[in-house]
């Protein structure tokens, strides 16, 4: 059927209206002579509508006379008619061709540069650096793909704030993904090393500067560990002269972290019922368009769930249409007294969760202290570790 339609379109076809006392006679004459008629339907008494190919229509004139019917062309379809129409509207054709050509040309260009990972000042700086390196809107995709490695290498050299940077091309968008450095880059000017946290110093290795602490000292956060100063004798006067330098070294200390968790013995728990109210809405920026709701609205207490689906986000990160489904389920709340085992298990689980947030920490010792505080149970977990606590800060003049 699909092939028939294609052939009909390419060869051209017409919709005809057959009027007469016996349209069936003409239908039989047409089909009997080997021609193809389709979509034959009676539209009014004595009027039959049908479709026939153009070359067939040219051959049925004799048959029309023999049947005694009148045939009128209702509409013309297909490529031959379209071609004739286009030939008459040359500027339209030129415009359409130009449009297609322009679209194809524009799709070979990079039209947008999107940066992920950097915000504000760093983003603007990275954008400028990318433009200097050759990545700018208007360059071809092929050109960017050829120079991708070079631009990435150059960007890594000129962007110390990034630990990794990658460029990918998605359609007409060049996506630059940068992973910002968590720790600040080494200070270029004179600097001191100070304690990043409280602890007892276990090891001091000085590379540059003068150590201000010894092993066994107790330090508090912000205390000076290694001073960014170097003493040397003036060759002319013979006096000792202080020179400011960026301090360097490792100061390891025993450090303790406390994780405090409070778990209630009595908790409120919801009891969900099957009765629910479901609402569908569309959101476009700040506009809310209600679609339809069904079910019964909960009278007082309800449990609310929201499901959000973005409809074709495209490259619009911030804006776009969202389909929102809200479910309000009837709920009643009741108090539940938890068993001591449950409370303990919950406290330990929360402690484990908080412990996971202390990344790159090698725990040497762990102590737990449980306290019963009436309706609550308190757990304080102390973690002991040894780590480098030195942190570079610009040199302070008062030292």
């Amino acid at each position, binding site marked *: 059927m699909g092939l028939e339609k294609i052939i009909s379109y390419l060869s051209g076809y017409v919709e005809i209206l057959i009027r007469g006392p016996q349209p*069936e006679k003409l*239908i039989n004459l047409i089909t*009997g002579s080997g021609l193809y008629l*389709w979509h*034959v339907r009676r539209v009014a008494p004595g009027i039959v509508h049908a479709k026939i190919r153009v070359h067939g229509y040219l051959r049925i004139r004799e048959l029309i006379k023999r049947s005694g019917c009148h045939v009128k062309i209702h509409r013309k379809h297909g490529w031959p008619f379209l071609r004739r129409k286009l030939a008459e509207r040359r500027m339209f054709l030129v415009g359409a061709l130009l449009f297609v050509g322009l679209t194809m040309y524009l799709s070979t260009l990079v039209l947008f540069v999107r940066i992920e990972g950097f915000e504000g000042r760093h983003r603007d700086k990275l954008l400028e650096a990318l433009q200097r390196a050759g990545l700018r809107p208007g360059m071809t995709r092929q050109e960017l793909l050829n120079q991708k490695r070079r631009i990435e290498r150059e960007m890594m050299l000129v962007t110390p704030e990034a630990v990794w940077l990658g460029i990918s091309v998605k359609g007409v968008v060049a996506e630059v993904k940068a992973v910002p450095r968590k720790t600040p880059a080494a200070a270029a000017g004179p600097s001191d090393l100070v304690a990043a946290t409280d602890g007892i110093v276990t090891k001091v290795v000085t590379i540059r500067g003068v150590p201000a602490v010894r092993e066994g000292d107790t330090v508090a956060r912000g205390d000076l560990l290694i001073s960014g100063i170097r003493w040397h004798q003036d060759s002319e006067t013979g006096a000792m002269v202080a020179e400011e330098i960026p301090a360097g070294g490792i100061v390891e200390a025993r450090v303790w972290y406390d994780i405090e968790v409070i778990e209630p013995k009595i908790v409120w728990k919801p009891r969900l019922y099957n009765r629910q109210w479901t609402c569908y809405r569309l959101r476009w920026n700040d506009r809310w368009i209600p679609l339809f709701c069904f079910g019964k609205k909960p009278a007082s207490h309800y449990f609310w769930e929201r499901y959000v689906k973005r409809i074709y986000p495209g490259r619009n990160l911030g804006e776009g249409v969202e389909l929102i489904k809200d479910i309000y389920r009837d709920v009643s709340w009741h108090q539940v007294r938890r068993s001591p085992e449950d409370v303990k298990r919950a406290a330990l689980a929360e402690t484990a969760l908080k412990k996971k947030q202390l990344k790159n920490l090698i725990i040497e010792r762990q102590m737990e202290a449980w306290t019963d505080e009436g309706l609550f149970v308190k757990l304080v977990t102390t973690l002991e570790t040894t780590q480098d606590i030195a942190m570079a800060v610009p040199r302070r003049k008062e030292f």
Partner: protein
Amino acid sequence: MGKEPSIGERLAQMLDIPLDTTLEWPKLELTANRHLVVENHRGVIEYDPNTVRINTKFGEVKISGSNLSLVSALKDEIVIDGKINQVELVDWR
């Protein structure tokens, strides 16, 4: 007593050849009550949205229904679409 089968018919049955292709017997193919294909017909006798009458070698096929239309009409095949209520073989020999 039924009519004796012709030589051609007997030969086709013996050789397992479909009768509609060799002897141009009419073939009706009905899909649910929506689509009917009539092969080896001998023309349309009457057509309107409620009734289509088609002539065949053996007699008339009368199709009754509603919104009936001839989806395609060729020399040896007619396709009818619509809601078909009844297919009747009228005066078949």
